[in-house]
């Protein structure tokens, strides 16, 4: 495994170039740029339908400095399977345009809608077949591209346009789907979580994902200033708070003798070592407009408490998995 330093990464050209039309404060281009700094060489990217796709490729312009394809919403993993299969076949035959590449990093980007919901089948199929590609879930926790509708990745009690906070129902009624558990149950060689607040962590994990022999899954939290209702300059702060409150802990997971082994990443490990440093979820919730109804006009301690309990429970489970419980 080769470690990538920030210095090295900063010298590499951006494969997602400036000039795209993603919103100010959007975390997606930050994460995508960082991940693409970690590619090993020849790379092909595919992106599911979503903000990242529509805002970077408005014909005749493009922000992609690498070969890139958009197929449809639910099939990023299947498209990536095809690209990987094409390369593999050409390598075996020793002919065809991709046959000269000893490695080919195939990377698929998809949002929460394209992963938790409509794209779950294609993802599961590709993981089961063991294609050598990296799947990046850029999770902004709702269908932001279509106007902030709830997805399977939307957290409990968050307000979206299809889970509005009304007088009877206070936002989304279901908990966030445990996508990582689902993915890891496929016994893939590498999975990890990412936050744009920790660039070096992103670079290292992305490189490990590309180097993994088989499917790798990167789950990035990408706060959306429009949908989460916070000022654009607060993106990194929100991304960091997600980790510090353990709402979105950072860890990685690989297989040893066929069993998944979890390791906390430095920022979350620090919280594990000093439990008193773990921030209350209220700090994370209260700076986002999508949770405003939990604080005004009337404070909903019951909901805040159950969110805290859910986060604590998930965190305890993670510590156990990482052998720290």
């Amino acid at each position: 495994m080769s470690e990538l330093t920030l210095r090295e990464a900063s010298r590499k050209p951006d494969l997602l170039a400036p000039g795209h039309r993603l919103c100010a404060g959007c975390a997606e281009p930050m994460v995508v740029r960082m991940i693409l700094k970690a590619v090993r060489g020849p790379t092909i990217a595919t992106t599911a339908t979503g903000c990242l796709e529509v805002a970077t490729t408005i014909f005749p312009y493009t922000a992609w400095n690498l070969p890139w394809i958009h197929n449809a919403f639910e099939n990023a993993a299947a498209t990536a399977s095809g690209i990987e299969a094409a390369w593999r076949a050409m390598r075996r035959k020793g002919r065809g345009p991709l046959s000269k590449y000893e490695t080919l990093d195939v990377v698929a980007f998809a949002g929460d809608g394209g992963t938790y919901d409509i794209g779950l089948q294609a993802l599961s199929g590709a993981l089961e077949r063991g294609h050598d590609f990296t799947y990046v879930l850029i999770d902004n926790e709702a269908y932001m591209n279509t106007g902030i509708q709830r997805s399977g990745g939307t957290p409990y009690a968050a307000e979206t346009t299809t889970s509005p906070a009304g007088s009877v129902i206070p936002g989304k009624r279901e908990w966030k789907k445990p996508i990582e558990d689902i993915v890891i149950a496929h016994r893939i060689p590498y999975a990890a979580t990412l936050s744009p607040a920790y660039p070096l962590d992103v670079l290292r994990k992305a490189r490990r994902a590309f180097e993994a022999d088989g499917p790798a899954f990167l789950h990035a939290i990408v706060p959306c200033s429009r949908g989460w209702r916070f000022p654009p300059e607060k993106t990194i702060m929100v991304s960091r708070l997600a980790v510090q409150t353990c709402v979105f802990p950072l860890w990685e997971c690989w297989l040893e003798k066929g069993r998944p082994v979890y390791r906390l990443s430095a920022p979350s490990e620090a919280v594990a070592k000093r439990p008193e440093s773990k921030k209350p979820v209220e700090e994370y919730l209260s700076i986002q407009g999508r949770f405003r109804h939990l604080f005004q006009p009337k404070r909903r301690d019951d909901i805040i408490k159950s969110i805290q309990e859910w986060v604590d429970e998930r965190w305890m489970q993670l510590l156990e998995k990482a052998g720290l419980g």
Partner: protein
Amino acid sequence: MGLNGDEAAAYAVKQVNPDVVAAYPITPQTIIVERFSEYVADGLVDTEFVSVESEHSALSCCVGAAAAGARAFTATAANGLALMWEITYIASALRLPIVMAVANRALSAPINIHNDHSDAMGARDSGWIQIWCENSQEVYDACIEAWRIGEHPEVQLPVMINLDGFTLSHTLENVLTLPDETVQEFVGEREFMRVKGHMGEADFRLDPERPLTIGPLDLPDFYFEHKLQQVEALKKALRAIPAVDEEYSKLSGRRYELIHPYRLEDAEIALIGLGSTMGTVMHVVDELREEGVKAGALKLRIFRPFPEEALKEAIRGIPAIGVLDRAISFGAPGGPLYEEVKTALYEEDERPIVVNYIHGLGGRDSPPDLIKSIYKSLDHARIRGRAMEKVVYAGVRG
């Protein structure tokens, strides 16, 4: 050799040895992927066989592979094709010469595994070239020609090869095959369009050395023009198909063209149709001719692009035309093929009587007697000078 239609497709694809075959099983297509996976298991091809989890992913995988410069093949039927529907449009709009065999089958509900053409007719507007086969020989030949047609520099479109479920897919026939090397030489290497990308001129594929953005967001300022390019490409296919066919005929001695007219020269009544029924139709034409009835037939080998000019030329002067549809277009004035034939004839100086015969849905047999009764009804219309009914559901219990 003795092959059923599915095996003929699998055997041809084996000889082509494409880079990627991605498929999901559905009756009556299953034999294609079963045979092909045997070829893979026995090392007779070096194709990457991707056993996907759905037809949607089968075609999606082919899109990824073909965009990466590979030759890609898949096969499906009925609901499988319906599940691919979204991606059929994407494959053609991205100008990817994927080849797909469709063992035509009725669409649910009610569930029915037998033949009709409602699956392929549902995909008729998706921008694919459609070849329709009468027998296993045609399936074999089409599965070889399709690569050259789709990859033709002026075309660059996906090709769908239609074979009637069970009637062809599961019926053993003698098929004349070509040697592997002949097939290999004929298909050659895949050709790519040259395009102007944001990093200069490039082959139209995903190339790490010459990056292109394939499948971008197209707003109202460009979308329409891109659609017109597909229209043009399909028009050009009308010239490319006979050109490829001409080359193929030199190797095989078999020639197909766009349409296959049968005893039309002095015909007074003629049936136009697609697929395996046309074998029966031509047999009935021979019988009727012996009885002194001036019957003829026109088999359409290519339905998309619609060979309008060739069709009009072939049937000009025939007073009564019957159009055999093996699908319903619900709520429409008639079946899909009927509507197209009628539209094509509207500008003619002398318009024939045109009657639509919808038959054989869900695998209902269309025996010679039924075809004969259709000719008889068409002849009545000719004698009367008009059709009593515009659309006839032939072979349905009263």
